[in-house]
């Protein structure tokens, strides 16, 4: 438990991704089984203890001191688990519990036993250990580590490509004995045949130079404005995976219901707009906006009402498995034939085929790209006809050509210190546009400028500060940014009522007077 607590403690304060990976990899290498497996389960959100409730912790905390001192302490610290960890008065000299003991015991424990068990463990730990224990059992680690990051670290720890780990991830269970035996001890790779595990996606590079591409070598299709998903059905089990390999099946029972097949597809998850005039013919209707899709994301479960308001469906791009046959070794052209046959055979209205676009020359490709925004597409995909399905981003095989961004001139309002390497720079910028005579914030950006420009901006912020709030400075409303963004949508959570998607600083307009920046009406017209 001590090593796990030290890891969590360090991760909480570490902003940089690389440093997090180093800490995690170091832990996975040094820690024996099954502790490291349980730690991996905790980090990837695969553990929960339904019988351990925050209420029990609150009771334990209150017994540590009188009401006045508890209230003053809780008020000062602001977090119940942390307050409890710090207030705890150790009784006797108990042995510190091991992580595996804690997890295995707690999984068996009944509701009435939890309190006594936890109290005993708290006695054996120091303040950091107590904090980690309480975070672990109440399930709220919140240490800025995604399941994907934990897997990348695992790959780094044992010199294994993360794609290889992802392939078997959904077929292994905590505390991952078989996984670590393979990674650390040279045992065989766990067998996943017959299971609907995640297969790493093939990804595209942004299209920068197109002059020397011959259109005849490429298949062109829309890049749909949804989220990339993988549909895996094998041996009677069905799973829907996100691009990061997270299992999102629980949020999309409608898609799962449509997966009455045996195979693995790559596609785009979209939602329909039931109010749209041509919704009676699902095949020809355009999907609802990305904003509508967002209502369905990041949910563990979904209500009937939500299913009816934003029904989900999939546009299929590619096929990885047809039954047990691994098609990733075929060329795209051959896979496309298999995909068309598969979708036709399956014949379900919620699994559509992504149409191939007719683009015999560059003029027609460019014309399609120019149409993307009007049609609500994110852009174009260009894929080499002879490309095999290879995990990751392989050079020269697949390209994405996004629609041109929208731009607006906005005024810098606040600047905040960055993290890690940028902690001495004011590098996160909040900007706004005019509503009447007042500026309202419309977005925040922290990239799009060079290091030299960052140094200039930092200096400008320091010289034009009018107010300080901790790490944030309010500045004189004088500097204009040309902000580029992919799209803008309404958002009740923002004061301006608008939120930008993927904003970045396109240009710093040192020359432009703030009064000539855009007005809110101009942005509202872009929604």
């Amino acid at each position, binding site marked *: 438990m001590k090593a796990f607590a030290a890891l969590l403690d360090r991760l909480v*304060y570490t902003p940089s991704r690389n440093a997090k990976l180093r800490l995690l990899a170091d832990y996975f290498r040094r820690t024996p089984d099954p502790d490291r497996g349980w730690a991996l389960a905790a980090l990837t959100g695969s553990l929960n203890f339904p019988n351990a409730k925050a209420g029990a912790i609150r009771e334990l905390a209150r017994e540590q001191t009188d009401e006045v*001192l508890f209230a003053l302490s809780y008020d000062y610290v602001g977090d119940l688990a942390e307050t409890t960890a*710090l207030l705890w008065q150790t009784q006797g000299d108990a042995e510190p519990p091991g992580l595996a003991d804690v997890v295995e015991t707690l999984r068996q424990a009944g509701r009435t036993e939890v309190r006594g068990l936890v109290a005993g463990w708290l006695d054996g730990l120091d*303040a950091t250990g107590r904090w980690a224990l309480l975070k672990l059992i109440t399930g709220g680690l919140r240490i800025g580590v995604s399941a994907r990051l934990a897997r990348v670290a695992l790959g780094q720890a044992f010199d294994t490509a993360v794609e290889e780990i992802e392939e078997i991830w959904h077929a292994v269970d905590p505390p991952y004995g078989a996984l670590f035996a393979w990674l650390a001890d040279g045992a065989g790779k766990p067998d996943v045949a017959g299971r609907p595990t995640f297969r790493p996606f093939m990804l595209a590079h942004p299209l920068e130079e197109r002059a020397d591409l011959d259109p005849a070598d490429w298949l062109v299709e829309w890049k749909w404005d949804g989220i990339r998903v993988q549909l895996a059905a094998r041996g009677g089990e069905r799973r829907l995976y996100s691009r990061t390999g997270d299992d999102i099946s629980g949020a999309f029972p409608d898609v799962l219901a449509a997966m009455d097949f045996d195979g693995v597809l790559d596609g785009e998850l979209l939602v329909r707009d039931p109010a749209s005039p041509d919704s009676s013919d699902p095949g020809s209707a355009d999907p609802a906006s990305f904003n509508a899709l967002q209502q369905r994301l990041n949910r563990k479960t979904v209500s009937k009402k939500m299913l009816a308001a934003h029904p989900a469906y999939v546009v299929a791009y590619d096929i990885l498995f047809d039954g047990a046959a691994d098609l990733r070794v075929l060329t795209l052209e051959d896979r496309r034939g298999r995909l068309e046959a598969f979708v036709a055979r399956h014949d379900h209205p919620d699994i559509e085929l992504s149409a191939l676009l007719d683009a015999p020359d560059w003029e027609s490709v460019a014309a399609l790209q120019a149409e993307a925004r009007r049609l609500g597409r994110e852009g174009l995909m260009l894929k080499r006809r002879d490309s095999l399905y290879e995990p990751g981003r392989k050079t020269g095989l697949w390209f994405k050509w996004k629609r041109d961004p929208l731009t607006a001139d906005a005024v810098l309002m606040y600047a905040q210190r960055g993290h890690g390497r940028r902690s001495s720079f004011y590098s996160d910028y909040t900007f706004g546009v005019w509503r009447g005579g007042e500026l309202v914030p419309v977005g925040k950006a922290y990239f799009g400028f060079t290091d030299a420009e960052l140094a200039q901006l930092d200096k400008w912020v320091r010289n034009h500060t009018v107010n300080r709030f901790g*790490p944030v400075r309010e500045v004189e409303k004088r500097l204009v940014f040309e902000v580029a963004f992919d799209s803008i949508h309404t958002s009740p959570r923002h004061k301006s009522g608008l939120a930008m998607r993927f904003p970045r600083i396109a240009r710093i307009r040192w020359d432009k007077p703030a009064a000539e920046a855009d007005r809110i009406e101009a942005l509202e017209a872009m929604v």
Partner: protein
Amino acid sequence: MAGLRPEDWLKATERGLWCAPADLYIDPVRAVERAVVTHGHADHARPGNGRVLATPETLAIMQARYGDAAARQAQPLAYGETLDLGGVTVRLVPAGHVLGSAQVVLEHGGQRIVVSGDYKRRRDPTCPAFEPVACDVFVTEATFALPVFRHPDDAGEIASLLASVALFPERAHLVGAYGLGKAQRTIRLIREAGWDRPLYLHGALQALCDLYEAHGIDLGPLEPAAGRDRAAFAGEIVLAPPGSLSDRWSRRLPDPVTAMASGWMRVRQRAKQRGVELPLIISDHADWDELTATLEEVGAPEVWVTHGREEALVHWAARRGIRARALSLIGREDEDE
């Protein structure tokens, strides 16, 4: 003197605690004719006073910081020596806070009042340990007077610093430490953990480190951080005042791991606010257990609480039958310790 009450001869005034019969202010916040200064931290030792009574070490620190403005006339009083001022006997006793730090023991009319200044109870290799003195009134600080503050063993904190240096050998480790006391104690603790490489110093720390060395505290090899190649800091430990941690000064270091040695690091929200990546809980103030143990040890039936989280300590004392009240002196803020 029948009927003499402690508050008749030691009063909280706008300028600070004032001992009336001796016309003596303790750590005055504004300039006065006669002052006794408990220790060299800026919120206790201010420039511009007339006659200043303090330990020789504290006077040396004031001289280093303020030059001629330290005092019109410095009056050294070593630990244990006594001085009579208008019928009040004054004595200074080690407080264990920083080099030269003292409690002020005042005796008058058969009563004894001890003003703690800032203090701690755990071992500090850079100054003599706190000596408890039995008294009628104990005037205590309360910087960390909440039961959530229980400082861990400082060797463990240094071990986590050195473990991090081993894990990130290509980065510098930048440790924020208050310039008087914390910096030198942290350096000593790093030396005790076996680190004998040079430590690199922000320019603002140099003078006080020299002063500690002149008082016989061996800090090992120290080098200025200025004028050195960025790459030369990889795998090294650099110390700077807390205010320089995320300032432009730190850009000379290669992707530094920002650490901070302070009792405030115990609470995550406070450590995060400071943008600290490696909090080191090392404090020069008593934690909750030290404060309450000290109150029991000195056995004073009456306790005055000066600065910090007075409410909690007053509450604790009252429940043990000690008459306790908060003095709420002005000009005392949480020390950036």
